[in-house]
């Protein structure tokens, strides 16, 4: 068989051998983007974190509670952070994301982006299109993971995760600021059966913030925080924190 004559060979990318890609991680400070960063760093180079700071608390794409605290996490992880503002308006925010990724490419030389998408086709599709438009790789290392197994993996790897926001029934104020434990995972799995919530909160039911993990050189200690809650919506806002060397 003469495969060399096949016209498909014109599409071959010659740069793939022993590829170690310089990556920018779309970073919200929540467990999914932190874990995606951890996974990506196991084999590729993380050049920067990219955070979209949304003015809209109900953004379709971007996590909002404690978004300014990503600067502390970046220091704790020893990585540069590109922080980019957005009004957080549906679809228009995608242009802001594209601009932010393009800026990361220009400033840090990234060749690809990493997301923490698990099941959200909405998010994954839009980031894939942006990456293609900018001629970048797109990696989703958590894609389609079983959510309960994933939460357990976070614990087994040593990540410390707190609930920084609740946005759906039946989550009450007691969840705010609570740390992810095996007991909490069992409760989330039960709520998945009863109410069809996503245990990892990817449907917008929960938001999280990571205090520590195997890819953190320092852990984050919360010194002061406030809770606000009403009608199954609430925020745990970190007002003062410090880094503690590990």
């Amino acid at each position, binding site marked *: *068989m003469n*495969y060399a004559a*096949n*016209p*498909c*060979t014109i*599409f*071959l*990318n010659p740069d*793939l*051998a*022993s*590829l170690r*890609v310089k990556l920018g991680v779309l970073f919200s400070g929540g467990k999914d983007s932190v874990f995606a960063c951890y*996974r*990506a760093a196991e*084999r*590729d180079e993380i050049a920067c974190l990219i955070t979209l700071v949304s003015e809209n608390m109900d953004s379709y794409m971007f996590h909002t509670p404690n978004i300014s605290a990503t600067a502390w996490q970046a220091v704790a992880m020893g990585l540069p952070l590109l922080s980019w503002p957005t009004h957080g308006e549906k679809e228009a925010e995608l242009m802001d994301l594209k601009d932010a990724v393009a800026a990361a490419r220009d400033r840090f030389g990234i060749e690809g982006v*990493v997301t923490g998408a698990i099941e959200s*086709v909405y998010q994954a*599709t839009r980031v*894939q*299109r942006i*990456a*293609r438009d900018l001629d*970048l*790789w*797109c*990696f*989703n*290392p*958590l*894609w*389609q*993971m*079983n959510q309960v197994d994933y939460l357990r993996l976070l614990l087994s790897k040593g990540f410390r995760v707190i609930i920084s926001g609740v946005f759906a029934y039946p989550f009450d104020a007691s969840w705010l600021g609570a740390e992810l434990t095996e007991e909490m995972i069992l409760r989330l799995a039960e709520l998945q059966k009863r109410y069809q919530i996503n245990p990892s909160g990817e449907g917008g039911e929960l938001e999280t913030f990571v205090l520590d993990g195997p890819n953190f050189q320092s852990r984050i200690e919360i010194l002061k925080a406030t809770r606000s809650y009403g009608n199954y919506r609430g925020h745990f806002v970190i007002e003062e924190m410090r880094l503690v060397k590990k």
Partner: protein
Amino acid sequence: MILLVDLCFEQESLSRPEFVDPIADALRRAGFSCKVHHFTELKEDEPENYDRVILCGTALRDNAYVGQLEPFSWIKSCKKPILGICAGMQVIGAVFGGRIVPQPVIGMEKIEIVMKSPLLGVPREIEGYHLHDFGVSVPTGFRVLAESREHVCAFQHDRWPVYGVMFHPEVRNRWILERFAKLR
């Protein structure tokens, strides 16, 4: 035992958790055992040691497999059921003489099943997740099972249980993987 062939640009790439592991997870949760081999490490007669074979997809920019079709020459002589997903369908098509052609689609798309088959069932409309810049022309000896916006979404060999789907059944259509695993 089902053989999953990883078509990503290198072994243990960052794409494997996205394009191979979800298929393995879906099959294991449905009660089927499977083993992953990267396409570059597959010996020609090795697929015969398995009950069936799935060629997995790759990232949008990853087309390393296209220039290395020699490791897939076993496809033509393999007696076991084979399913190619996205890049895997392109490989099957190319091995049987089809042409890989530009066909960019990203996201959920309506898919019209146009012919009854053991893999996809009776004609009807479903939705599937696409992630590809290229598709493949239908080689001689294959029939079209499904279409979308004038593109071929699935095909089957006329005589052998060799299938290809351009969309990713591991996303919202895991029933297709289970049907393939149960094919007689």
